[in-house]
């Protein structure tokens, strides 16, 4: 969570500087800067995820060295999951909390011509992002562990795709549907990587 926060800080710093240095009345430029800010932020987040992976790797080595039986009390997969959840929660909290606070107050959604489904879609989008961050955490760490760069690139590309799809808002079909599809794909991938299989799933669902 902290690492996500720091990445957000740095990316907003860059965007802020860019905005201050540019002409505030130029609409397309502002929009362009915003897009640039978003993409840069995504890249920074992934970079910080990588840094976090490095930190956790060191921590695991330390724990293994100090433990009695040569294995650390927490595995790298668990750490990957926790890292993903941390990133997701922080990103979700930052996206939603002001919305929720405003939702407590008086007002009508979309009275000025914006979409009436604003709160609803925001909620769904946040939810899908939190899930995605969790799965991306697992995928990313797995890729780093086994030195499979294409997995890491896939995560980055997916993240860029999801963020990019939100540019279609308020045409929510363009953003929510692809995001959910990507989430399903990432979920299946992460599940398989963590050692699950169709058989396990069937056994679990049928309570064997």
């Amino acid at each position, binding site marked *: 969570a902290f690492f996500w926060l720091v990445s957000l800080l740095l990316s907003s710093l860059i*965007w802020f500087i860019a*905005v201050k240095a540019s002409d505030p009345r130029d609409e397309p430029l502002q929009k362009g800067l915003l897009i640039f800010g*978003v993409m840069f932020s995504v890249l920074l987040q992934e970079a910080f995820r990588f840094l976090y992976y490095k930190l956790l790797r060191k921590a695991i080595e330390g724990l293994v060295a100090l433990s009695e039986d040569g294995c650390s009390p927490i595995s790298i997969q668990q750490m990957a999951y926790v890292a993903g959840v941390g990133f997701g929660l922080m990103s979700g909290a*930052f996206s939603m909390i002001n919305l929720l*606070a405003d939702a407590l107050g008086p007002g009508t959604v979309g009275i000025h011509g914006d979409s009436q489904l604003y709160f609803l879609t925001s909620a769904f989008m946040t939810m899908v992002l939190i899930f995605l961050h969790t799965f991306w955490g697992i995928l990313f760490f797995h890729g780093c562990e086994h030195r499979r760069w294409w997995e890491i690139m896939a995560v980055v590309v997916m993240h860029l795709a999801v963020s990019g799809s939100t540019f279609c808002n308020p045409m929510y079909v363009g953003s929510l549907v692809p995001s959910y599809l990507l989430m399903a794909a990432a979920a299946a991938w992460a599940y398989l990587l963590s050692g699950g299989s169709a058989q396990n799933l069937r056994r679990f669902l049928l309570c064997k």
Partner: protein
Amino acid sequence: MITFMNNSDSEEEPCNERTSLMSAESPPVPSYQDGLPASEAGEAQAHRKRRTGSSRSPNNIADGDMSDSGVPVRESALENEEEELTLKYGAKHVIMLFVPVTLCMIVVVATIKSVRFYTEKNGQLIYTPFSEDTPSVGQRLLNSVLNTIIMISVIVVMTVFLVLLYKYRCYKFIHGWLILSSLMLLFLFTYIYLGEVLKTYNVAMDYPTLFLVIWNFGAVGMICIHWKGPLQLQQAYLIMISALMALVFIKYLPEWSAWVILGAISIYDLMAVLCPKGPLRMLVETAQERNEPIFPALIYSSAMMWTVGMAKPDTAARGPSQQTWDAAEDGRGNHRSPSHADSQMSETRSPVPTRPITSFEELEEEERGVKLGLGDFIFYSVLVGKAAATASGDWNTTLACFVAILIGLCLTLLLLAVFKKALPALPISITFGLVFYFSTDNLVRPFMDTLASHQLYI
């Protein structure tokens, strides 16, 4: 306002809580500056008292005994085990401290956001005489710096005073001071708080009920904090009085002064605990010499030290020293000195039995807890509360400061495990908190607002 000015002394005590985390090796430091929660109360300890005792007795005995060869082996074995246990329980300690700090912050933020009283400007404390209503930025900055200097010097004077009192064993005075300050916190501040909360929610309460409620709350609080009580109740009370104190600070400190004071206090904390001539360090060393326990009233402890009823076969020699440690738990420094002398003598005379020491260690694992000074709680909550109050209604800033403080606390505990001596708990957390507050408020907020208005997600 007049009441505050009159009670300035006792009010200052809670304010002046020094914050430092005590490490494992040092024996319990009575960083409990009775009257001055501010001064030293902030020492947290991983209670290794018994372990210190058991690892020190080999030292004493090694000086004049045959079991010399056994001793170094025992020492290194103890050290290795200590390190492992430190790391294993490090995570537990972190969680044990996260929960109360989070609770305190939640209480403060909830109150700030709902009760309007604490964000209204109704005057200032006498410790911050310069007003911030001046039109020019430079003047305002100057006033806030002057306010900070006054506040910090008051705190320094109080701390030094407390150290002197402690050095010259004026325990009764310290006791009385502390009891007076917690009385005021528990009764007066609670009365005001309850009044404001009831006003906000428009709930009517008659005076007899109010009197009953406050009397019970205060009386149970006094007993719990100063004497004996269930651990969780004591922890709850300590959290509540920290939150009350933080709310007072948030209300009565002017804007810029509050931030400058937070920064200055963490610097002071750093110096007072780590410099050789710092008052807190002198207090720690004095307490170590006297081997005295910490008074529970101004330190938050996450685990209770219960008396060990070890029925071990050859504990005849261990008996007196064990009783010394047990007596220590009770926390009264008065009968410490004579029993301490006993333990020294018994330790030098008795040989080193192996089994009781391991059982000491086992027992220690169960009881070990971490202590954090109430001043830490207060200043963390002041930071988060101020963020909630003044960040233009933005929850992101509050959340960011909250995470920053917790991470700072984590790092401090890590350093504690590494260095094993008294550490100040304020600097890292407050630095992170301040950095995140200012950067989130000025940089992240416009970015997130723009993103939210276009419904873009990053």
